[in-house]
């Protein structure tokens, strides 16, 4: 059983039905994917499997032999953050931070797939992710900013974002 995680090859020792989440956290000690509900409902454990966002808590590792996994650790480091990470920082899109990893991985897949700054499309892309702190306005604003190609000044946060109606009610 082999997995490539953030461009590093690993031979996996966990039992075949171990979830990808447990393999990442308990065997490889890659901690950004979070156990939130462990039943596919909250999105906090989302990672990219060959570029596609997937719930690590529902995925047995046996189904992934040879796959390439990307987690937040693979996006960038504090000294060299990727655009999604910069945007989440600048736009104040994380409060407690627990849903943030999953949110960013879903955002990364959306943007890699050519996603635009359309709020409804971003909302759709993040629909399986629960945030209980900030609400979703700033998260959506961060993703939209990356889609627009904004550059980010990380020494300040963004001006407050006006309430954007993303509920489909005009």
């Amino acid at each position, binding site marked *: 059983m082999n997995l490539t995680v953030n461009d590093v090859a690993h031979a996996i020792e966990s039992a075949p039905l171990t979830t990808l989440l447990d393999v990442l956290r308990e065997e490889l000690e890659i*901690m950004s994917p*979070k156990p939130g509900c462990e039943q596919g409902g909250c999105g906090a454990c989302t990672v990219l499997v060959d570029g596609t966002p997937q719930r690590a808590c529902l995925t047995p590792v046996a189904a992934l032999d040879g796959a390439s996994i990307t987690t937040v650790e693979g996006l960038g480091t*504090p000294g060299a*953050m990727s655009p999604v990470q910069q945007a*989440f*920082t*600048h736009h104040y899109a994380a409060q407690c931070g627990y849903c943030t990893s999953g949110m960013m991985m879903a955002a990364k897949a959306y943007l890699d797939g050519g996603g635009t700054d359309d709020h409804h499309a971003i909302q759709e892309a993040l629909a399986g992710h*629960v945030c209980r*702190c900030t609400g979703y306005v700033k998260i959506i604003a961060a993703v939209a900013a990356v889609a627009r190609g904004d550059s980010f000044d*990380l020494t300040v946060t963004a001006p407050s974002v006006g309430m954007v109606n993303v509920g489909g009610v005009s």
Partner: protein
Amino acid sequence: MKAVGARLPRYDGVAHATGRTVFVDDVRIPGALWVKALRSPVHRADITGLDVSKAEAMKGVRAVITWQDVPLLEYGHLSALGIPADEPLLAKDEVRYKGQPIALVAADDEDTAMAAVEAIEIDFDEKPALLDVRQAFDPDAPVIHQWGNWYPHFEAEMDRRQIRKGDIDRAFEQADVIVQGVYRPAAIEHVPVETQSCQVVPEANGRLTIYSCTQALYFSLGVVAAHLQVPLNKLKLVGGTVGGGFGGKVDTATETMCCLLAQKSGRPVRWRWTREEEFLCSSTRAPWHMEIADAVTNDGWILGRRMLTLHDSGAYARFSPYGLTKHSFHHTGAYTIPNLHFDGYVVFTNRVPTTAMRGFGVTSISFATETHMSRIADVLGLDPWEIRLKNANRIADTSPNGVSYTDPSTVSVVKALAEGIGVELSAALRAMTRDPREGDLLPEHLVAQVGSLEEVH
């Protein structure tokens, strides 16, 4: 003054964005045991038998604890304020809510811990449960708490939080209309995305290091020390990183039990609740039952309010007496009502104990009062904005508990609300201020309640 008015980055923003924030369950401690709980499967029962010997004998099980392992079994969340305790850390003779912890296991791995919980033998004599506060006062209701069905330990051993202000009978005699309403906001689960989690390391020097997701580190320190009957300097709490709390991580839910397991096994232990446990038995925002009758005049003044509140505390008191006290002080909402007759009860039921959640005690009455203000406007055929602004708290008005307001914000908030949703207020309403009442805004019924600002300075 570089920070005031500036848009500074969060101190933890980069750590969150790079996955480097260390939450409690992210701490890696070699050899840590997994913890699982045996919980009550029923709302209410007497425990007639409890045998953990088979669980203890299982391979890989390092410790099992029951009520017998707790040095001080009962310690209340308000004990430090002198309020008597009513809740055992682990159930002893009875269970009072579904999900109440009875015994805990620490084992080499999660599967073994779960199997050991299954191996604990327990016998129950199930009893009728009380699940609705409205039935708690019925003569034939089951008595489900050692103090009776409602909390009896307010000051002077009163069994309610009571407020009397002005002359309520006269207010109701003078009223043109009595407007009544019953408001029942439901329980709300906090649903932090991080479930309750804790890790404890028994250190070589005899101290316990506690990794805690609590919102109230020093509060938890006192609670753990009390149950364990150890001085505070035997405990080191490591916290400050909370994966969502919203009040649901104020109660000390996991730390004490993990400490007992760490002591008994001599090993580090790790407990992370499942989402099912979080929904089943973590504390919630309380459900409330509020009955309001207001004495009002045809021109939109509220002369008096009679109110009954039943605050569902769940099976134990925890913070509910405090929550109800806040509620009583705010029971007129953001408005000035000169004559009051309020009775509030902390009622026990066989629901999960309720607790703090974002303004607990106050959000319930804000919901009830605002709904009621609109109901009054409907009944009288008046503008709902006008009756809010007329009755709004102003400087020198007095609160239900007799405090003179020095900085009330009702008028500015109501006007901002109107603007925010595009309602054009009349010139007269736009001219409203929070300045002390005079002229038409100081009718005879409000004169006596106006306080002296000197008194509060």
